[in-house]
């Protein structure tokens, strides 16, 4: 066991997979010499050489397109989009090829690609550096979309992502890249993609969240506890394929569900979770499925970001209202 941040954990996972599979290739903007602007790929080029870990030209479409080609030819590329806000030039390759090659070729060709991208707000960044567009990826057939919330999960999910023969969009909550430290096994282990995790058992209300929002919900849960409210917290971990079962089971028990996401609320993961509750647990619902989300606005620049960011108080406020409904 070793104390790791999410940065360390992802780095460790990449290290392990680079070590045990010669087909794993890591590239992207500044991931080689520099080790990534967040240092997630630090030291990997030194250890595995410039052929396996390298800087690409500043060309996201090209990064993604070459990854599709490499993957079809048998490699397992793990590419980095420097920020999720800069992944859009790669969108065509993601939606038109990476997610479709398997289906298009009736399984003859697969695209075992991991697309890493730091996402989310709360780091006082410039425009385009704070967005959370996971719902868009979730809506694209053929993709898996994974978001860890802890170092342990980041490592296990990253290993699973690299070992998956499907394309995985691996979104890293940069706000907690270094904020959470945890003892993580140095061995190779993986966590199944598509399985949510019940982080806390509770009886009054189910809260579904993921990524950096988990920590905020946990803060809100202290307030809830003081108010005598028992919260069941589910860490979704995978946006798609979504774990209906875990959500359904919990909502059937609590009769109430709140989803907390950083993104704009309309057409968000929160809307989806609510609808799953409708479909799976309607007769159990004692209050409307609730969403706590960002506004349907652009994430403001740092001086305005506090307005946008979801506070523990806001989460607690909605928990209380939902429980009192």
């Amino acid at each position: 066991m070793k104390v790791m941040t999410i940065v360390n954990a992802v780095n460790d996972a990449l290290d392990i997979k680079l070590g045990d599979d010669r087909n794993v290739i890591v590239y992207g903007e500044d991931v080689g010499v520099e080790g990534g602007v967040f240092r997630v790929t630090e030291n990997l080029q030194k250890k595995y050489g410039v052929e396996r870990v390298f800087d690409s030209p500043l060309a996201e479409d090209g990064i993604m397109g070459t990854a599709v080609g490499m993957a079809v030819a048998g490699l397992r590329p793990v590419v980095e989009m420097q920020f999720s806000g800069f992944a859009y030039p790669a969108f065509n390759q993601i939606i038109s090829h990476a997610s479709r090659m398997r289906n298009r070729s009736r399984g003859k060709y697969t695209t075992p690609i991991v697309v890493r991208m730091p996402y989310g707000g709360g780091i006082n960044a410039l425009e385009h550096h704070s967005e959370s567009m996971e719902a868009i990826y979730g809506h694209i057939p053929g993709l898996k979309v994974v978001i860890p919330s802890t170092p342990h999960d980041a490592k296990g999910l990253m290993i699973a992502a690299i070992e998956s023969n499907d394309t995985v969009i691996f979104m890293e909550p940069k706000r907690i890249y270094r904020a959470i430290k945890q003892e993580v096994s140095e061995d190779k282990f993986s966590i199944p993609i598509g399985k949510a995790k019940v982080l806390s058992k509770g009886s009054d209300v189910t809260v579904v969240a993921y990524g950096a929002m988990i920590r905020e919900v946990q803060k809100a849960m202290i307030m809830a506890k003081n108010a005598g409210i028992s919260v069941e917290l589910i860490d979704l971990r995978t946006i798609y394929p979504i774990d209906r079962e875990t959500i359904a089971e919990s909502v059937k028990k609590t009769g109430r569900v709140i989803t907390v996401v950083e993104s704009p609320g309309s057409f968000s993961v929160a809307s989806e979770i609510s609808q799953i509750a409708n479909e799976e647990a309607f007769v159990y619902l004692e209050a409307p499925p609730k969403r706590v989300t960002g506004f349907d606005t652009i994430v403001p620049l740092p001086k305005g970001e506090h307005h946008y960011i979801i506070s523990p108080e806001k989460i607690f406020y909605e928990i209380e209202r939902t429980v009192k409904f």
Partner: protein
Amino acid sequence: MFEKYNPLDNNMLQVIDNDGKIINKEFFPNLSDDQIVKAYRDMLFARTADLMIVSYQRQGRIFTYPPNYGQEAIAGAIGANLKDDDWLVPAFREMGAYLAKGATLKELFLYFMGYEDGSLFKNAKNIFPMSVPIASQLTHAVGVAYELKYNKKDNVVLTVVGDGGTSEGDFHEALNIAGVWKGPVVFVVQNNQYGISTPVSVQTASKNIAVKSIAYGIKGIKVDGNDYFAMYKAINESITIAKKENMPVLIEALTYRKGAHTTSDDPTKYRTKEEEESWEEKDPLLRLKKYLISNKLFTEKEEEKLISQYKKEIDRQFIEAENYPKYPLDDVFKYLYEDMPADLLIQKNNHEKFLKWKENFVKN
């Protein structure tokens, strides 16, 4: 070759003229008479199939199809040059190359009839499915080249795009990255002078397309795409250089799309009869046939016989495709992921439940 046909001078590699006469011995490719005859037969097969597909389409027996008519020398030369383990990353207008790689007409028919199974190319090695989003396939080829280089394979990847496709950012990113990474990749632009209705003059103001290689530090050459020998030679040398020097090459193959863009297109809306007619004598099959006949390698009679033989074969495969089993519901779901996610299974099951209900409902 690349020095002599410097695209900056707008020179174009040509080996035979419109009468099939050799006008450029130096670059006549190293091909036996048998190989040349085979090349012609392959092109003839492709053309015969192409024309039949258009008429199948008119009969409503397949959906939209992009004719290759007039461009067969390019696909033919590609197909003749690629080895089994070489990769082909196609666009969608190079049937001859598919067939040479081992795809069957039947599969292509299935594709244009609306079955994904038609993209499987069961017995063809190292060939990508057709790529519909223009130019998006080019970066795939660069990724494949990376793998070939990484694993020190003695193979090449060849990819195809249209003149219209050169306007897309993908074209730039692919060629630019290829220039930096190096690797055994050959880019062939089928410059058929139109992207649907849009002439190449609306696509770019560069002197020609081959000259764009300069922007990427790779080699480039403009070739008469209706001259089989020139195309064969250019591709052959490019593959050699790409493999030996890990040097990407851009080939502009100048040609003309004699047919419509697709079967839903009407070219009379945007081009003149005169223009179309001016290309008749440059027809790639005509020119190669003239060469063959004047060299006593082939006769019109043989052609007639071949065509009727090909027609039978093509029709046979077409009818096989028409008798292909129905598209099962399962096939909508089962190829998206290695393991079908629970959600998809639920959706499928629910739909099956509905279908059962519907049977009853329709009865009443």
